[in-house]
């Protein structure tokens, strides 16, 4: 009996040991040979990804991480350069008709898929139609259907392929017809949803498309050699890429690392070449030559709900809008490279004639605590003397929570108003906003393309939706609609500037907070690593190594 007892324990022990050994052997295969490749003189770039990779299917994917990867292994008709201007890529040139509604793209010679086949105009037609078709489309289909003629009807299943304004004249010529003159359309063609797809290949892999690195056909500067959603990706230079002589990096590794402190430790141990810093660590490295900051076209703002008390009152909205100092928030609290916001549209966003929108329009809101108090008093009189309990809705990530705490403390200090914070997970926040279950909320919008319209079209309010604060102002709506059809770019921008002013100053629908930025460390021998402020952000094609 006694012997039996110990024997049973022993057997159990060995069994479990074996089981777990199996579990490990699989993942140990992908062991990196980083030091070896260094020795062989290859130029290797080690980067990190802040979360798992959800989906590398360019048609359905929606998240920044996947876009960052796709942008380096695929290429559209145009590619953004270091200054965010679209430069010919798969296309060699384009002819734009006088009414600015027809684009004729001429494809470059010698562009190839990673299996050696030619990239043709048909690949673009196939891909774009696939991105629109109700059976295959993802949530980014709007980025095509909003602009191309007949695309929306096709996406709704109300039109045939022939009625869509995407045609391949021959293998080398692609003709695209637009609904409205769209000055930023070339930039759009650099976006992931506009990348081409090879029809034969897609039919061959079927359901397995983009599930591993072998089930994608590449036409960008790099190809994937390893892909594990939870671990990361490895890339290699694409030998079929048309511009290969201008690509310096040989290999890239991008690993999923969710903790900022881990990233920093890996950077210091030399296993990463570039990381983003958490605000706690910024001060330590601020003077280092490896330190830098970048901002994105992502604006954070308070969205007031005009359908809920007390924000149905203009004066109360105005009081809240003026009662905090975005500069304090950006420099003292966030301290991560973010810039204080006094308007909706981020600085650097394209305006007209190479002049940024922000420079033309100036700042719209100027915080003023005295004025805020006056507005509050006026508002209180109008609503009968007392504020109802007020809740500020926010998502549960650190930055959103810190922002909420900041707003709360400022409202208390500058207005004497008590606000409680309601934190919800990301989708919970969106759900509350959609269900009209909030008073005011900390929200954000990242630009899809380099034009004011990406922001201002959101509040058109036809119909008014809770998500956009139930805002509806015919004057604003007409301005935006007119700007959409306007062919004169100067007039167009002026209308949009006026629209932004109405939205913020006259109607106080939003309270600007900050433009998202990040602080980073980057090894000093790495140059020309480009981070676009919107869309598919990361561009490794231009990276060079300083010996």
């Amino acid at each position, binding site marked *: 009996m*006694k012997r039996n007892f110990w024997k049973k324990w022993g057997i159990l022990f060995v069994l479990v040991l074996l*089981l*777990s050994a199996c*579990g*490990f052997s699989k993942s140990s295969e992908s062991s990196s040979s980083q030091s070896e490749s260094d020795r062989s003189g290859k130029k290797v770039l080690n980067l990190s990804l802040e979360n798992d990779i*959800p989906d590398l299917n360019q048609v359905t*994917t929606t998240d920044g991480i996947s876009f960052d990867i796709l942008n380096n292994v695929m290429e559209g008709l145009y590619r953004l350069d270091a200054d965010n201007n679209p430069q010919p890529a798969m296309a060699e040139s384009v002819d734009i008709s006088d009414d600015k509604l027809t684009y004729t793209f001429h494809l470059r010679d010698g562009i190839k898929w990673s299996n050696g086949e030619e990239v043709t105009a048909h690949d673009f037609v196939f891909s774009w139609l696939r991105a629109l078709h109700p059976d295959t489309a993802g949530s980014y289909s709007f980025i095509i259907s909003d602009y191309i003629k007949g695309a929306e009807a096709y996406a709704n299943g109300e039109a045939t392929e022939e009625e869509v304004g995407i045609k391949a004249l021959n293998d080398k010529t692609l003709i695209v017809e637009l609904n409205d003159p769209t000055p930023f359309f070339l930039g759009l063609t650099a976006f992931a949803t506009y990348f081409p797809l090879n029809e034969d290949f897609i039919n061959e892999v079927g359901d397995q498309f983009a*599930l591993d690195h072998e089930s994608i056909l590449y036409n960008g500067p790099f190809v994937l050699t390893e892909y594990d959603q939870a671990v990361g990706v490895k890339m290699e230079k694409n030998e079929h890429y048309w511009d290969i002589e201008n690509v310096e990096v040989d290999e890239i590794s991008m690993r999923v690392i969710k903790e900022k402190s881990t990233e920093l*430790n890996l950077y210091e141990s030399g296993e990463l070449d570039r990381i983003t810093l958490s605000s706690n660590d910024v001060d330590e490295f601020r003077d280092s030559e490896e330190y830098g900051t970048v901002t994105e076209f992502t604006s954070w703002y308070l969205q007031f709900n005009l359908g809920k008390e007390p924000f149905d009152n203009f004066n109360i909205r105005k009081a809240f809008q003026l009662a905090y100092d975005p500069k304090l928030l950006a420099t003292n609290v966030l301290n991560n490279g973010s810039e204080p916001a006094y308007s909706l549209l981020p600085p650097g966003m394209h305006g007209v004639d190479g002049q940024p929108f922000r420079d033309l329009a100036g700042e719209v809101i100027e915080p003023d605590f005295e004025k805020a108090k006056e507005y509050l008093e006026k508002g209180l009189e109008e609503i009968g003397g007392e504020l109802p309990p007020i809740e500020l809705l926010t998502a549960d990530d650190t930055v959103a929570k810190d922002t909420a705490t900041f707003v709360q403390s400022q409202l208390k200090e500058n207005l004497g108003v008590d606000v409680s914070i309601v934190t919800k997970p990301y989708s919970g926040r969106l759900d509350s906003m*959609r269900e009209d279950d909030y008073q005011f909320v900390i929200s954000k919008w990242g630009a899809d393309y380099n034009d004011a319209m990406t922001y201002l079209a959101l509040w058109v309010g036809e119909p008014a939706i809770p998500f956009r604060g139930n805002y509806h102002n015919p004057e604003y709506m007409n301005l935006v609609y007119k700007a959409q059809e306007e062919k004169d770019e100067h007039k167009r921008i002026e209308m949009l500037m006026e629209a932004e002013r109405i939205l913020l100053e006259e109607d106080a629908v939003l309270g600007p907070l900050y433009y998202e930025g990040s602080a980073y460390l980057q090894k000093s021998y790495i140059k020309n690593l480009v981070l676009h402020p919107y869309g598919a952000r990361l561009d490794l094609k231009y990276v060079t190594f300083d010996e």
Partner: protein
Amino acid sequence: MKKFILVRVVNILITLLIIATLTFFLMKTLPGSPFDEEKLADLTEEARMEFLARYGLDEPVHVQYFKYMANLAKGDLGLSYYYKEQPVSSIILERIGPSALIGFQAVVLGLSIGIILGMIAAFRHNTVWDYFTMIIAVLGVSIPNFVLAAFLQFYVGLKMGILPVAYWESYDHSILPTIALTVGVIAQIARFMRNEMLEVLQQDYIMTAQAKGLGDWVVMIRHAIRNALIPIVTILGPIVVSLMTGSLVIESIFSIPGIGSLFVDSIKMNDYTTIMGLTLFYSAFFILAILIVDILYGIIDPRIRVHGKG
């Protein structure tokens, strides 16, 4: 014995069914859908429903439930919404390895060290040994494991450079995470072991054994440990499960592609099929752990015999 096992298997299936049902309906009350994002916010309600319809998410919840159950009966856990088009079962299988290894090492290490510490403490009751062991045990449960993990990573990984800072590439990469996870287990086991040993050492049969003239260690090993193991076995089940979920923090600090992080992500992303798959996986695992505990009870303590009736 055969009947006993049969009854237990039926019981397990019923339990799993109830868990699956509860989780399914609870999960569906979570606000939002797997496709929530700012970019979809401006869709009209119709367009949204149309989009959801493509995934069968527009149907009444009970219809979705029966469909899911029918698939489950066929062994199909469905496709993930977040990791688009990937079967949930293969996602779980891919991620289970690292978590299982770290968890298993932590349990084995924690169990052995904890039991030894507990024995020393009980055997040298009220001596320096006792206090020393218990202080270790108390510190073990007082320091959050993410703090410990961060310390280990910074000092052992980065400053001393003995072990890898992060990643999951070789056996060495599993050492620091295991240590970070083990400390809590050691502490819990050591305390329980000490308590039980103290009690057992006062039992009549121990005195009888000592009176027979058996040496201290013989008494300890043959009689005392075996009786003291009973409560250890009871808390082992929960410890194992909490290790698997608790390893989330460790996994994200050491950048390990495990199952803990998957679980929290799937809840936050409303990834229904993955939540269900993982819940069922954890539940089955835990129920099995309880079953093994019950059987071990019978083996370790001759006074308790499991019968079909319970």
